[in-house]
């Protein structure tokens, strides 16, 4: 079986700026993985390459053995760092919209999550706070039965109680066939949920290790270790 995600000597340059350089990375199925790095380290560039929104300058990226494209979009569920949803739409319209777009969208799961987070399906996005909008987007993304979930900063604007609920959702949604890749700065909040941490710095991957291995080797949490490695 192909690995879920494989990058070989993957590089991306914007003009003279190198955003990613020589990335070799393999992600297996059945994992929850943190993509951790300071601002401007290349996290979002990597995520956009996975989703086919950017094309590599050199090297290659394969998802389940296929280059990013229509086929891979069926199995990758992507939460971008910025919203692309129409502000005038009501939540229930958005659910229909996603249901039309994706075969693997589970509308019942979405309605269950809306109820748990006290979001009214008849509300339109423009009446919502930033945090509530983020929750709606995350619900849409997590309600697909995808193989790879790619979440770019999913919990930044969300209050701690909802954050716990979202992490619980990620845990209970876990199955051995799918992998969740989460990019974030809020390491302490998600650390216990992760199998693996990937550190990315200046466009290079400097570490890929399990959370418990980091704790054994460094005698501290991933959060504390991150602060040490990326100390300004």
């Amino acid at each position, binding site marked *: 079986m192909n690995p879920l995600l494989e990058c070989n000597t993957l590089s991306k340059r914007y003009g003279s700026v190198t955003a990613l350089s020589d990335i070799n990375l393999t992600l297996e199925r059945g994992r929850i993985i943190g993509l951790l790095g300071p601002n401007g380290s290349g996290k979002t560039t990597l995520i956009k390459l996975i989703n086919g929104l950017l094309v590599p300058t050199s090297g290659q990226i394969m998802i389940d053995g296929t280059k990013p494209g229509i086929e891979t979009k069926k199995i990758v569920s992507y939460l971008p760092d910025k919203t692309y949803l129409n502000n005038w739409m009501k939540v229930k319209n958005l659910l229909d919209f996603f249901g039309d777009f994706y075969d693997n969208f589970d509308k019942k799961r979405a309605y269950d999550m809306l109820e748990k987070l006290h979001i009214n399906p008849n509300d339109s996005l423009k009446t919502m706070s930033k945090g509530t909008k983020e929750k709606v987007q995350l619900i849409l993304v997590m309600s697909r039965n995808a193989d790879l979930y790619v979440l770019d900063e999913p919990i930044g604007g969300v209050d701690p109680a909802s954050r716990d609920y979202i992490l619980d959702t990620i*845990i209970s949604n876990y199955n051995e066939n799918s992998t969740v890749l989460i990019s974030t700065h809020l390491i302490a909040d998600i650390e216990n949920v992760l199998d693996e941490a990937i550190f990315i710095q200046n466009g290079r991957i400097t570490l890929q290790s399990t959370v418990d291995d980091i704790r054994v080797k460094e005698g501290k949490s991933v959060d504390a270790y991150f602060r040490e490695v990326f100390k300004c």
Partner: protein
Amino acid sequence: MAWELKNDRPIYIQLIEQIHYRIISGEYESGSKLPSVRDLAAEASVNPNTMQKALSELEHSGLLVTNRTSGRFITEDQSMIQKMKLELAKEQLENFLEQLKKLGFSDEEVKTFILESVR
């Protein structure tokens, strides 16, 4: 008992310890069925693979017994649970003695100290 996880040590080791305490305290009764990995992981807010690893270790030590069709059970072997209880007590005692030694108490002083406290 709520799951309490500290930041400085591997998560799976802390999960093992806390399950030990639950078995000793009788929260997980000897011979009873353990919740599923997924439920335990959600309850403790940890990664399911990490919980799986902790349970595998507990199986290895014999405290958990797996029945292939019906799940994981706490051992019915009371002597094993008793032995674990003594080991934990010993560990606590050693920590305690070490702390007192650091504070500069002699063995004799510790003895009178303990006798007075227990009385």
